[in-house]
């Protein structure tokens, strides 16, 4: 009887040994290696982002002075309206503090705003993430909420030296507590699925039966503030479809998110201010 040959199986056995050894490597070593491999590629990501900014700068340089003057004038009008809103907000903020003192309520969470440029968008079939050009050096913590002018962007999941990774609200890995504007009852929002050549989507579950929404009369979806990550009242998207779930106790439906989520250039990280 011929001898069995194991020489071809030897490399696979060696791979099995390597995998077994990898499984018992301490987590701190794996975390350090992961961070090292990310930082090895971070300069390429940040460099490409700076190159894009330079490209945009030189393309703007080709615009005529008249175009730039008109754009500046439009921005000045917008700035003036925002300055008025800021003054009104400051008045409201002082009123909230006064009421908190009178009623002896715990203070609301305060945030520092850290504006960051988007270095890379990674919107593949299975997840949706962006890499921003600020990290530990700018005091960004893991789990900090990220917003833009249209509402919620996502949450910081990884922080490195000068870059951070944000899990987008349209990613299937993102779940939030949400509610319809004007209501206080929370239900679950989850990102995805995102069909091709369409705006980002999400879905809602455990919606109370007395809430109705359709594409002709959508309902604005906002954060509840539960969980302590996102401040309450931030826009998530619009609920465009609701139907009773299979158990008949709640409704589930579809949410359209802001189209600008797929083309973000700049975001704001809300860094919690901790009072020691």
């Amino acid at each position: 009887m011929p001898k069995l040959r194991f020489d071809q199986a030897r490399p696979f056995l060696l791979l099995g040994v390597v995998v077994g050894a990898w499984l018992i490597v301490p987590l701190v070593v794996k975390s350090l290696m992961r961070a090292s491999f990310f930082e090895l590629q971070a300069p390429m990501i940040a460099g490409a982002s700076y190159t894009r900014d330079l490209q945009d700068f030189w393309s703007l340089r080709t615009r005529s002075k008249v175009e730039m003057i008109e754009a500046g004038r439009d921005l000045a009008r917008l700035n003036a309206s925002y300055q008025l809103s800021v003054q009104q907000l400051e008045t409201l903020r002082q009123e909230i503090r006064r009421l908190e003192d009178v009623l002896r309520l715990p203070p609301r969470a305060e945030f520092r705003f850290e504006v960051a440029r988007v270095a890379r968008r990674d919107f593949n079939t299975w997840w949706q993430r962006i890499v921003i050009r600020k990290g530990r050096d700018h005091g960004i913590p893991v789990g900090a909420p990220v917003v833009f002018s249209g509402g919620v962007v996502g949450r910081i999941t990884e922080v490195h030296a000068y870059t951070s990774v944000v899990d987008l609200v349209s990613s299937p890995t993102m779940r939030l507590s949400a509610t319809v504007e004007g209501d206080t009852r929370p239900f679950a929002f989850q990102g995805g699925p995102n069909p091709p050549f369409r705006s980002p989507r999400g879905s809602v579950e455990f919606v109370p039966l007395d809430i109705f929404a359709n594409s002709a009369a959508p309902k604005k979806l906002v954060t509840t503030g539960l969980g302590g990550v996102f401040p309450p009242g931030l826009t998530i998207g619009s609920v465009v479809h609701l139907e009773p779930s299979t158990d008949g106790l709640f409704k589930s439906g579809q949410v359209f998110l802001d189209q600008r989520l797929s083309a973000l250039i700049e975001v704001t990280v809300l860094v919690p201010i901790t009072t020691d």
Partner: protein
Amino acid sequence: MDPRWIIPFAANLLLAMVAGEANHYLAPYGCSILLSGLALPVAGLRLSLRPGLLAMALTGLAMDALGPTAFGANAVLLMAGLLVLHSIRHRLVRDGATAHVVVALLANLVIFVTQPMLGGGLFAYAAPTPGRIVMDLLLSQIVLAAAALWFFAIQERALVLWGVNLTEELRNHR
């Protein structure tokens, strides 16, 4: 410093950067490409085993560092793919372009469908629409087929310039 693993690893990093930039511009259109299958053919069909394994391990770890997949998962997948290639490569025309491209397409397909299983429960969340899966896979395979010969030529030229004898490598198994 052995160029037989450095050059494939450096080339794969360049590939990851180019694919990442392409995905950055494709994001507003709701589609993406995955070109990880291009990492295997040169290391699997033209180089000996040990430098190929090292290059695949480092490439896989670099891929895992940028995504939410479990760290080391893509490295194991690429190393397993390399070992499979090494065990069957005596039946393939190793210096032919067709074999390289076919291997890259098949490897890319396997890597694409296994991504959610490497993510520590990614598949437990909402699955993507079938249209998205088909569109991304089709786009990935088309771009891969178009870029394959250029990418392989870069690696082979770099290896030859750095003094690696590819004919000798074809004869070696270890």
